[in-house]
């Protein structure tokens, strides 16, 4: 069976600078996979290539066995690839509900409609409300993003991606900027995500990574250093050297 998402020898260079070097990566169906690495390891570049923001210099990307390397962002989303952003990318002056409804409407193909009012599409609104309820945001549905505390904004970030009903979900630092006291809330939400979604998380919060992920890939200078279970990664000397050590002593 083909993997949910797979890359073959994925490369990206900007002139002489190589930020992704022959990355072979496999995300199984239903995976809980983390991608870690020190700053500048090329994690975000990798995600941007997966989602179609950046075109790779060479290599291939397969989504559920289909080559999507040449597809644009929108077409990858339509095939079930969703993402969240490291820095909130929300519709700041719209309500929480509208933030999610926009995604639901795109998925359902309602978004281009002009004749009926948006509020006369109760299916979209109800799905949005249900989704917010599962993330514990039901009471905030009518708030504007601007007026929402940062931790909750991070949850909306996830809610929008879930509104696309993705088969593969890329979470780019879901806990970035959230005080550690509140990051458990993010983890709780991540634990409740449907089992069938394959999740790749990029995260600096090692507690969160080791509690959430069942496999971890370590990226260093654009190359895969090692991949394994959290136990294997925790014991790996090289990883300690380049990454964990730095954190523990830092």
């Amino acid at each position, binding site marked *: 069976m083909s993997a949910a998402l797979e890359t073959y020898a994925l490369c990206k260079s900007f002139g002489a600078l190589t930020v992704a070097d022959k990355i072979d990566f496999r995300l199984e169906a239903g995976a809980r996979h983390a991608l870690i690495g020190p700053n500048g390891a090329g994690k975000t570049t990798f995600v941007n290539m997966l989602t179609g923001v950046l075109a790779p210099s060479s290599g291939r990307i397969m989504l559920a066995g289909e080559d999507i390397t040449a597809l644009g962002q929108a077409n990858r989303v339509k095939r079930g690839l969703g993402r969240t952003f490291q820095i909130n990318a929300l519709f700041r002056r719209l309500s929480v509900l509208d933030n999610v409804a926009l995604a639901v409407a*795109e998925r359902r193909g309602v978004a*281009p409609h002009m004749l009926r009012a*948006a509020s006369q599409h109760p299916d979209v609104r109800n799905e949005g409300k249900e989704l917010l309820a599962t993330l514990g945001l039901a009471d905030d549905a009518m708030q504007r993003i601007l007026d929402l505390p940062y931790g909750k904004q991070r949850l909306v970030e996830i809610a929008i991606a879930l509104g696309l009903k993705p088969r593969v979900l890329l979470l780019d630092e879901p806990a970035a900027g959230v005080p550690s006291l509140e990051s458990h809330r993010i983890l709780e939400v991540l634990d409740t995500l449907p089992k069938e979604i394959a999740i790749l998380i990029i995260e600096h919060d090692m507690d969160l990574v080791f509690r959430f992920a069942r496999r971890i890939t370590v990226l260093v200078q654009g190359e895969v250093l090692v991949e394994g279970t959290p136990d294997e990664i925790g014991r790996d000397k090289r990883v300690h050297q380049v990454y964990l050590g730095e954190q523990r002593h830092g």
Partner: protein
Amino acid sequence: MSTHAGGYSADPRVRPVEWLPWIVALAGFFLLPEYLSLGARILIYVLYALSLDLIVGYAGIITLGHSAYFGLGAYVAGILAAKAGISDPMAQLAAAAAAGALLGMVTGAIILRTKGLTLLMLTLAITSVLLEIANKASSLTGGADGLSGVVVAPILGLFRFDLYGKTAYLYCLVVLLIGWWSVRKLIYSPFGTSLTGVRENSLRMHAIGAPVYWRLVLVYTLSATIAGIAGGLITQTNQFVGLNVLSFESAGELLVMLILGGVGRIYGAFVGPVVYLIAQDLLAKQFPEYWYLGIGTMLVLVVMFARGGILGILDSAIARLRRKA
């Protein structure tokens, strides 16, 4: 409140206060019969500003070249009337709309691949090109002398354009009513909501799988259609077309009116032209040489102290009253 944002939980029904502009317009018709030509001009500019609000206020496309579509509509209606002998006002208006739509679609498809300053420059360039064409093709457009001899038959064969401008005023009011209804419907629709999404964060709209570029081309085309209709109306009511309809000043003036009234609120497009054109009329009579100073001062004050325009000031005043109550 006077903000009209649409969205999946916005009630799309027309609120009582939204009938106010129409009541004022009708009252003006009966009470100020000597100002009907100014009135018709205001109504046309409201329609024109409404088309601009759709792209600037809702979709977030900044343009200084909207006069291209207005001017093209004006010239198409004028040339049909003066040169091709087509005097039926509905046919002229339909042609103006179609011309605006076509130019909007073609130019939109090119320029909307760009953003920000580049986009702004391209919108300016399109207007400049059209202005030069109108200037040079004088056998068709009358060039710098303008196009006169515009013949407009009675509307639907029934209502003749009279000297006092009564028919013209009511005709413009009806066209504006249809334009307002369409724009309002669009803003409250899922399509309108997705435009607001593009304005707020186009990056995220891409990431949720929206064909952002096509949405923008479509709304740009619709906006250009309405601007074309407004241009057709100005020709029919003035029975003359001058190069000024295509000028950069006219596009800039329109943007000033919209900012003055309030951007992205539908009714900012009503308040702006009313205040601007009436102020222009009054100031031009009092201070024929310095009237632009008054307009300029008004704009500086609005931009510095009231970013939401006149309607924004009203909004915050109402909010303050409610808090006290």
